[in-house]
């Protein structure tokens, strides 16, 4: 097994206020990240992955969000810290890579300044040293011509280059935990491979723990040690990467793996999960949340109050419906609702 735990998320619930009511986008999630370990989080878009990541960083606006449970980072509960206490940790011990590189950078600041900014608060360096380090970082994330890029503004870079700048910012102070929210969606595969290599290298050199949020199951297969599959705010399956890809149990995980386009699917319809995720307000808060998406499975096969259960050592699954799940034959490619 890997090292000792650095992040322990315990019964975390993140609720957003919508018209004076709170609705949980992350519902009772518990997850541990160890030193030197990559934990991937996958799941339908809108299932609460980013909401979870932002909760760890303390980036939810307090007026509109309610956080319950605890997030223990190296022994301190992040949820009990004030903003200024949190500022000593974020950027230094925890670095975050944001999902959307095109909006994640300040349009009025040069690339160089934006990377140096986090060093301003966490490292005692002269401005020459900061500059030097920034140029190194730019080189490290694979930006050709660091000197030129240092003085450029975000709008002058392509999507992929901006994403690499965002990564450079996150690793500037060599954090012990990196939260990477879709770090490579904007990158081409060669640079993706390079960034993956870079994250792996950091992980090995500095025993960095990484939370990797991604839609790309290929990236998960190559990078992750363990995988948490989320659906509608809950973790529905948690297992090590090999088990998850070769022996998935939960119907959602199985459907997901079924949808990947491959050489064989050319000119065919891809598998689609029926129906749509209900909005936060309409989400049923009891019973199996995946039930409506696999309507051909009898209702009685679901648990009334499904919990995450350890079915084999290290392999956790929610609800008993997985024991009875099968793919219907006529189901491939069905979008699932009436279109004239």
């Amino acid at each position, binding site marked *: 097994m890997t090292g000792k735990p650095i992040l322990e998320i315990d019964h975390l619930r993140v609720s957003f206020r919508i018209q004076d009511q709170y609705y949980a986008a992350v519902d009772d999630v518990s997850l541990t990240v160890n030193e030197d370990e990559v934990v991937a989080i996958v799941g339908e878009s809108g299932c609460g992955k980013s909401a979870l990541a*932002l909760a760890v*960083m303390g*980036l939810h*606006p307090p*007026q509109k969000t309610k956080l319950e449970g605890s997030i223990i980072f190296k022994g301190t509960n992040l949820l009990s810290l004030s*903003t*200024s206490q*949190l*500022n*000593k*940790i*974020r*950027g*230094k011990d925890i*670095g*975050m890579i*944001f999902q*959307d590189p095109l*909006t*994640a*950078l*300040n*349009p*009025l*600041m040069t690339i160089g300044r*934006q990377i140096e*900014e*986090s060093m*301003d*608060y*966490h490292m005692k360096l002269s401005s020459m040293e900061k500059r030097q380090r920034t140029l190194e970082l730019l080189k490290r994330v694979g930006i050709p011509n660091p000197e030129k890029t240092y003085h450029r*503004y975000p*709008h*002058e870079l392509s999507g992929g280059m901006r994403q690499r700048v*965002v990564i450079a*910012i*996150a690793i*500037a102070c060599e954090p012990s935990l990196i939260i990477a929210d879709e770090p490579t969606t904007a990158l081409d595969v060669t640079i993706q491979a390079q960034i993956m290599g870079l994250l792996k290298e950091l992980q090995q050199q500095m025993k960095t723990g990484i939370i990797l949020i991604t839609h790309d199951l290929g990236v998960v297969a190559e990078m992750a040690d363990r995988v948490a599959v989320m659906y509608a705010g809950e973790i529905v399956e948690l297992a090590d990467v090999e088990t998850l890809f070769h022996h998935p149990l939960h119907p959602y995980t199985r459907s997901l793996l079924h949808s990947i386009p491959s050489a064989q699917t050319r000119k065919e319809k891809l598998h689609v999960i029926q129906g749509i995720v209900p909005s936060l307000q309409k989400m049923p808060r009891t019973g199996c949340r995946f039930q409506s998406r696999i309507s051909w499975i009898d209702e009685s096969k679901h648990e009334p109050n499904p919990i995450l259960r350890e079915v084999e050592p290290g392999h956790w699954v929610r609800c008993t419906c997985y024991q009875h799940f099968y793919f219907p034959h006529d189901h491939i490619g069905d979008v699932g609702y009436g279109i004239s």
Partner: protein
Amino acid sequence: MLKFILRRIMMMIPQLFILSVLVFLLAKAMPGDALTGQLASNPKIDAQTLEEMKEKLGLNDPVHVQYARWMKNLLQGDLGISYIHKQPVNDLLAGRMWNTILLSAAILILTYMIAIPLGIVSGRWTDSWADKLIVGYSYVSFATPLFIFALIMLFIFGFKLGWFPTGGSVDIQVEKGTFAYYLSKLNHLLLPALSGALINTVGTIQYLRSEIIDTKVKDFVKTARAKGVPESSIYWRHILRNSFLPIAAFLGYEITGLIGGSIFLESIFSYPGIGQLFLQSILQRDYSVVTALVMISGLATLIGTLLSDIILSAVDPRIRIE
């Protein structure tokens, strides 16, 4: 950049030309001419003399000839002669122009001095009691017309309390150039400037407030927070700089607005500036003054927008000046 400014100045020429034609034709189309005013004050002039005077002034020439002559003089910096004041418009404007520029600058500075802190407080702590108070203030001042507000200010602080002088731009007793002279100028300036600014701030406060509210939820602000940047720097370095952009862009229009506002303010506070002169000249049909003033305010507006563009391009790297 230099090329851009030059090109923009070149572009102003046709704009000013069209304005000048319009103004000239309008002035001509108005009932009465430069002599009508004189006639009223001196009814004894007979038809013969009148005709001679008209001929002498070129008022009988075809319109385009008159325009060409007026334009030629204008280009040489000669704005014509006021027939009411019986002196060159240039002389008439000299002192007043400075007064108006001074008043406008004072209003602008006061506006930003009031609007920026209030806008920031309001945008940063949305829905706090301070924000509600500020929003309340801006509703009230939005609903109050400038001239009514100015009259109330004049009445309370000028007449009732006697804190400020109620007219003029400087005491006549003080000697020009002394410290007391400048102090007196400032004293005369303060009340009209404050009245203008208190009404003028509304737009800027609301703009800044909504801009800050929009900017503070942007992704790059999250990035900055994730770096561990303290909250005060988040505001100064990231949110405010981005929120000021539209304010800077607005500067040009602000200047146009000030010209309009000065007409009311100067008239109410009997402040000898070009706004007051403008109103008087219209009432007295002193068209050479009116046309000159319209041309000047047109030019000021164009310079204002140019200024906005220059400021904007200096602070926003995304705006390319070509």
